[in-house]
């Protein structure tokens, strides 16, 4: 994967990070709703150097039938990285890591989607990572939520996600690949901005209780920035430039 460069300065004396960002500055984010004709809903996100495409199908018949639930619809998520998404070819078969991320994204979306109106059906979310550069699970979750809204699946709220972390003993927003490899902590956060609820929180690294609180705060603030962009993407597709 690279990135472990002993001479690299993660945070210089002016508070500028290795890719020129400030501590509380996210990477460039571009979200586009729609784009896939054959999917019921879709979204494309560029999150720094991450490029992710999401397609949503459903509600539709469940196959295999035994997975269906007579009380509610079910949500199925597949997170998949393309072989060319990373430096060295990735085996396209689902890895341990991809299975885990599929599961956490599914569980992060479940509080938002209201599938009890569609018993015996399934909503399928397919996430394809075309290019990965750290923080793909957050970017994928953000895009998946836009794609679900585009498909017209009833949702209590959008889910926005971004990672907070710690490098050089400083709490930062939006951890990139280098900071993830060499940094001290990485904390992906998924957040529903209107309901003010956290749906995803993982932590890899060591933080003091104070740092932990600060990380959550920084992450939640970051999610609000991401949410504004999600909103903009959907407004652009459905209401033209006018908005409201």
């Amino acid at each position, binding site marked *: 994967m690279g990135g472990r460069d002993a001479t690299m300065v993660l945070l210089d004396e002016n508070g500028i990070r290795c890719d020129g960002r400030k501590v509380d500055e996210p990477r460039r984010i571009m979200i586009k709703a729609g784009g896939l004709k054959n999917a019921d809903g879709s979204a494309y996100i560029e999150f720094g150097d991450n490029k992710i495409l999401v397609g949503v199908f459903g509600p539709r018949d469940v196959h295999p039938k035994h997975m269906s639930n007579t009380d509610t619809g079910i949500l199925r998520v597949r997170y998949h990285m393309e072989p060319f998404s990373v430096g060295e070819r990735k085996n396209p078969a689902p890895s341990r890591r991809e299975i885990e991320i599929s599961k956490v994204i599914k569980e992060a979306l479940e509080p938002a989607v209201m599938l009890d*109106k569609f*018993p015996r059906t399934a909503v399928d979310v397919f996430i394809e990572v075309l290019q990965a550069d750290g923080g793909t699970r957050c970017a994928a979750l953000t895009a998946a939520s836009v794609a679900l809204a585009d498909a*017209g699946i009833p949702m209590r709220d959008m889910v926005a996600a971004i990672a907070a972390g710690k490098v050089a003993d400083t709490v930062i927003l939006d951890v990139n690949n280098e900071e993830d490899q060499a940094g001290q902590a990485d904390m992906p956060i998924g957040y529903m*901005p209107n309901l003010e609820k956290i749906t995803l929180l993982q932590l890899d690294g060591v933080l003091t209780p104070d740092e932990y609180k600060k990380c959550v705060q920084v992450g939640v603030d970051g999610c609000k920035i991401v949410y504004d962009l999600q909103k903009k993407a*959907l407004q652009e597709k459905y209401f033209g430039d006018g908005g*409201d």
Partner: protein
Amino acid sequence: MDNKRKYVIPGDVVTTGPFRPEQNVILEGNKIISTTIGISEIYDDSVKVIPLTGKYIPKINDLVIGKVISHTSLSWELDINSCYVGFLPAQDVFGRDFSAHADELATKLKSGDLVAARIANFDRTRDPLVTISDRDLGKIDSGDLIKISPSKVPRLIGKRGAMIQMIEMATDAAITIGQNGWVVVSCESPEGLLKAKKAIEMVNEKAHVANLTDQVKEMLESKGES
């Protein structure tokens, strides 16, 4: 646009206060939150959001266009462009003296046939039951099928059927609109058919445009003169 109507996305607070939540909104504390992308409308005591996207959800008494997928010896299954298949029992077609031995379902409806049907019964425990035993229902013998987004069906019908009447008058076409987004157009003259199809597709694409009726009218008339 007056202040009662607003573009919303999931999670947006439509309003707060003592309103009754209707379609596509939920009550969370004292806030009324939209659950879909659409246009919110606030009435005297209730709030609803008209969706701009989403699949067709069957409703009792809806007229739908269905396509026969298959049949057993007792019933047909119809594709009604929804997440559920329409269930059409043989008794509905053959009458109460239907006998699984004597009557062959394929003589009446084959797979691939289009039917105009009405949703007779639907609840969350089973697939929608449809019926074709009513006036104007039954097998559709001729016409072209156009698929539009189910969320744009109300726009195609227009206020009290204004839009669809206008298209029918201008083209002499007979148009059957299924609430599930499938539309059958039949017309004696090929030009009328083409024009009607074009008009329907125009509504599908430009459903959010304000004075769409005028635009469609203009299109219909301009072609008529040439």
